[in-house]
């Protein structure tokens, strides 16, 4: 049953992404100054929102673990974090391609980009740290604390477009600015792609969660095999 739901959501989110791609490439109006490259925004921004959502869920799962000592919470935390890291990479990669054309360089060390990079490094560190601790309880406890510290970088990265006025463009979505800064059709498509990417991220997360459970079963079987 779980697998059937997973396949259904994967198919629906895939179809939704293809439908969005059609609108992004063939229906939406052009941006006056940037040419076709502005269309990267439809993946860049939703990619970041998806990764922030995943990190937020990971932080909630980490608090849940620290309060309840429930191993399942740790499984959720690692699954959300890994998917978040992938979408952070998506945000960074698409941003770099856009910057190459608009700024003439792939990367600049301005506070907004630097914090995005720090955010990615911090969560990569979280994933690497987990691989270095064998005892599951200790691993979950330390990882939960690190996850909460890492979430500070998410908050700073999210707020960096308000706090620092640098080379990176400021906020464009109306719920952040309180006014309509981009064409409503363009903003609408950003929300559509956000929903599609979050749904797809949910599928990836459930797949990763299944593996974490399988890994726990494998550890238990190994202990059983050693005791025989």
């Amino acid at each position, binding site marked *: 049953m779980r697998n059937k739901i997973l396949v259904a959501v994967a198919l629906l989110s895939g179809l939704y992404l293809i439908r969005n791609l059609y609108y992004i490439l063939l229906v939406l109006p052009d941006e006056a100054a940037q040419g076709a490259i502005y269309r990267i925004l439809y993946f860049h921004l939703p990619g970041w929102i998806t990764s922030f959502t995943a990190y937020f869920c990971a932080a909630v799962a980490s608090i849940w673990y620290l309060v309840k000592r429930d191993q399942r919470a740790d499984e959720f935390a690692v699954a959300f974090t890994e998917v978040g890291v992938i979408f952070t990479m998506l945000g960074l990669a698409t941003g770099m391609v856009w910057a190459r054309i608009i700024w003439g360089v792939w990367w600049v060390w301005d506070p907004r980009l630097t914090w995005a990079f720090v955010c990615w490094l911090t969560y990569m560190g979280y994933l690497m740290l987990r691989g270095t601790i064998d005892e599951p309880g200790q691993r979950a406890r330390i990882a939960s604390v690190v996850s909460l510290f890492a979430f500070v970088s998410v908050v700073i990265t999210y707020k960096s477009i308000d706090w620092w006025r640098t080379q990176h463009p400021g906020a464009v979505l109306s719920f952040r600015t309180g006014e309509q800064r981009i064409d409503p059709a363009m903003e609408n498509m950003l929300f559509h792609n956000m929903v599609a990417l979050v749904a797809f991220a949910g599928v990836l997360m459930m797949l990763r969660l299944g593996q974490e459970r399988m*890994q726990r079963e494998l550890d238990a079987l190994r202990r059983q095999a050693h005791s025989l």
Partner: protein
Amino acid sequence: MDERNFQYMFYGFAAAWCLLAVYLVTLVGRESKLRKEVDNLKRMIEEREKKG
């Protein structure tokens, strides 16, 4: 569609889709490897228990 910078837009889209596709393939590969390991261990434990 305005075709200025179309090539780089294509690179950006390709990077995004490739990243997701590679991760999905990695996840599927990892799952089948784990499943195989679990099945092997279960079989081994069953055999040991029969012998014991």
